[in-house]
């Protein structure tokens, strides 16, 4: 793709509302049940939902994970059976077999269509069987892929305690992160360390990240004197953070607009709108924004960012001046595009399943700013893209790299187009300064590999005629 240097312009949004492929939002179960160790997820849906989790999500390898299907049968659909009694039977069995601290009900398209009143049933059953029940409508009628997590966190936000339990406050570290960080230290040390923090209104972060990334981001903020009071979700449901009115909150992922809204409207917190901590540029901007809101002067971030960029040079030289095309899958597209453009790539089109321009405002601004600074054309952002049309555009544009869902990668590769699965960015550890390298490790892999293969003359592996 040869780049005609255009004059930078404002962001251009389109909405194709086409037939595009992405994973079902119930996917979030696959990572959330691992993240929240004392949880159990019950997906209330059909064989179609269950087979998806089992076979397409690749969680087939787990014989008995802490999630299950409540598989709706003909009697459930035709409303011959009593929903409450059925759910009670299943939840009692789960209680008996696993005894989790929380059961998360994942509603699906089917429960929407048959209008099953999960929000009504949940509290009744919770009271009757004595296990907290969280109800999330992670259905494909309203949401795409990663937004499933948004529905769960938004629902879970209601379960966070309003005030810190006063009695225990000193005896025991309620918050999982700080007890993790203080693991093995004497109490005096911990108390002493408190003084390293600046005095500020408590801050709660939201978004499900693997534990090492949680630690990493918490430490980055600690370096600036910012104390993270808690994360939503926590490692255990029993350790959900306290959220009092007036606390600050900040998200780490671009697909959490509903959770952000819930925290603002229902829990009366103040949202810090920042770019997301993906890439050294995003991470720096995220920390700076948090610091600025908390009225703290950030220290050494510029040097830090510069050092990280310098350490990425070996990867960056592989993609500089190359072009990338996002088909749209996991809602991380804007942040990734912004980072890759900062790395020197150009980007013609960013497909994205859903675009909340308000929640992503800071990120969109940074994208525009980045394009201007790097002197590349501002991409078109296509919401709900039509995959068929996109493929025609890819044939025309011949981008050096296409970031796409799992259904399209092999066929595009067979046609000589480099691809990377977007879903890998969902599962990899990509947040913060130190993980920027991992994003590039993933993004450059097809280029490194296919450069190698190019010499072998295996560019296109499809025939016009049917294969023998």
């Amino acid at each position, binding site marked *: 793709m040869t780049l005609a240097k255009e004059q930078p312009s404002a962001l251009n949004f389109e909405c194709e509302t086409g037939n595009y*492929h992405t994973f*079902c939002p*119930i*996917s979030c179960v696959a990572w959330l049940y691992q993240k929240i160790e004392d949880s159990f997820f019950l997906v209330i849906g*059909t*064989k*179609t939902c*269950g*087979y*998806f989790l*089992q*076979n*397409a999500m690749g969680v*087939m390898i*787990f*014989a*008995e*994970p802490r999630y299950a*299907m409540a*598989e*709706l*049968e*003909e009697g*459930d659909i035709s409303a011959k*059976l009593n929903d409450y009694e059925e759910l009670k*039977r299943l939840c009692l069995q*789960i209680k008996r077999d696993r005894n989790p601290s929380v059961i998360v009900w994942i509603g699906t*398209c*089917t429960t929407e269509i*048959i209008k099953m009143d999960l929000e009504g049933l949940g509290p009744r059953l919770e009271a009757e069987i004595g296990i907290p029940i969280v109800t999330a409508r992670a259905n*494909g*009628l*309203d*949401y*795409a*892929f990663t937004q499933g997590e948004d529905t769960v966190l938004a629902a879970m936000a209601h379960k966070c305690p309003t005030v810190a339990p006063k009695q225990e406050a000193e005896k025991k570290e309620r918050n999982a992160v700080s007890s*993790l*960080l203080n*693991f*093995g*230290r004497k109490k005096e040390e911990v108390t002493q360390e408190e003084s390293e923090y600046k005095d500020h209104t408590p801050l709660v972060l939201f978004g499900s990240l693997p*534990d*090492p990334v949680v*630690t*990493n981001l918490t*430490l980055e903020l600690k370096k600036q004197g910012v104390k993270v009071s808690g994360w939503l979700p926590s490692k255990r449901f029993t350790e959900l953070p306290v959220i009092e009115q007036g606390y600050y909150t900040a998200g780490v992922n671009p697909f959490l607009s509903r959770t952000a809204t819930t925290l603002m409207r229902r829990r009366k917190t103040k949202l810090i709108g920042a770019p997301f901590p993906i890439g050294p540029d995003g991470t720096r901007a995220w920390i700076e924004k948090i610091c600025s809101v908390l009225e703290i002067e950030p220290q050494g971030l510029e040097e830090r960012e510069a050092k*990280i960029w310098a*350490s990425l040079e070996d990867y960056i030289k592989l993609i500089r001046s190359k072009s990338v095309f996002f088909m749209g899958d996991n809602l991380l597209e804007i942040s990734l595009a912004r980072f890759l453009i900062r790395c020197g790539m150009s980007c013609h089109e960013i497909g994205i399943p859903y675009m909340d321009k308000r929640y992503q405002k800071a990120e969109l601004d940074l994208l525009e700013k980045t394009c201007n600074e790097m002197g590349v054309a501002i991409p078109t952002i296509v919401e709900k893209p039509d995959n*068929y049309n996109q*493929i025609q555009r890819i044939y025309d544009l011949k981008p050096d790299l296409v970031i796409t*869902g*799992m*259904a399209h990668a*092999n066929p595009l590769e067979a046609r000589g187009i480099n691809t990377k699965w977007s879903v890998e960015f969902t599962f990899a550890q990509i947040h913060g*300064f*130190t993980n920027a*390298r991992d994003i590039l490790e993933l993004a450059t892999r097809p280029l490194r590999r296919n450069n190698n293969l190019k010499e072998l003359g295996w560019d296109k*592996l499809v025939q016009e005629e*049917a*294969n023998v």
Partner: protein
Amino acid sequence: MKLAYWMYAGPAHIGTLRIASSFKNVHAIMHAPLGDDYFNVMRSMLERERDFTPVTASIVDRNVLARGSQEKVIDNITRKDKEENPDLIVLTPTCTSSILQEDLENFVTRASMDTKGDVLLADVNHYRYNELQAADRTLHQTVKFYLDKAKKKDELPTDKTEIPSVNIIGISTLGFHNQHDCTELKRLMAELGIAVNEVIPDGASVHNLKNLPRAWFNLVPYRELGMMTAEYLKSEFDMPYVDITPMGVVETARCIRKIQQVINAQGAEVDYEKYINNQTLYVSQAAWFSRSIDCQNLTGKKAVVFGDNTHAVAMTKILAREMGIHVVLAGTYCKYDSDWFREQVSEYCDEVLISEDNAEIGDAIARHEPSAIFGTQMERHVGKRLDIPCGVIAAPIHIQNFPIGYKPFMGYEGTNQIADLVYNSFTLGMEDHLLEIFGGHDTKEVITKGISAGSDLSWDKEATGELGKIPGFVRGKVKRNTEKFARERGFAVITLEVMYAAKESVGA
């Protein structure tokens, strides 16, 4: 409601899509919410398919739900008809959209007014039938549609092929080792002097379906897919069919003998006995393996078999009859066809289990403590937990069931592959056990000496905890690189901060 941790067979629309996308130049429109189109992912990922899967989701979202989906579905059908010129467009709902009780038949009628190709609504009850049954029904429906059409147009050929010929029915995309089985069956037919008239649905053109009746007989190698079609062709066109799965030396011979009988009844004069004898004794190595000392040592060992009807029945017979292995339990998840299963296996095993509940099967395995399991991926995991080796013999499919190398289960090369599977299942397990028996005597220290050459550095508790969270397969590397970094910079204790600094600096 049913509490389900695992499913052996998929939902109905997967079966329909397997048939539709197996045909050449047929496109399927799936009328479904976002995310239900994971069939495309499975085909692309598991089969490493080079082409785009010819399935498009006509997405049902909140707006569509409010407005009704007729317009969108019809638009998508006619659009795809123009874009790709398919011979046929198959419309299918999923479990979810089938609840809407829309008049999809009417959508199809409306759409087909504007399309060049044919349009068909897959006629399956999504709550009564599973993937396997739906596939069988959709294949039958498609075949009947084109034969009826040809009849109406008076295009049905009335003659038979000159030499004995066969239709191989039931080879489909995302089937368990289907591609290699098909290759092997074609080779077998060639060696028997039988022409292959049509293979359906895989790679077949719907235009050629009208030629099906030209074959002398139909071969249905899989119990799960093709029987309805074969029955239909028998009742409508008086075509005999052979439904003996040619798996294992004995059943392959029985299948060939049945073929001989069927074609001789139509005027051929073939005698395959010499071929069978030669293959059995000298070409295939399976009969010899059964007699060899290696297999002697498997005599009387206990095995559990579980899978779909076709493979569980075949493996039970092979293990019990050809290898002298004691099948303590044979089971299937094809509940809808359980009478046939019982009839086939009951004389070859102690106990029969018909169930779709994986916990029940797991418990049965734990109870029997067999020396080996032959089952699905699910049983393989049960085996891993119980430390019992498991050979995978049946779907649900997994990427390992799409090997690049040639691995049929059917025909004479299939018998060889199965002998290897059986032998390796028992003996690889055996190797671990031998190591365990002698384990205490086999010093492990010396060779592992090379790994951790005594560290001069200490890790504080936080860092140790963090290290513990790193996946095992990279942990060693991270540890070494971090220590190297710390040593170079003179840190004596590794803290979390040192760890992250190391990662940034050397990518540890």
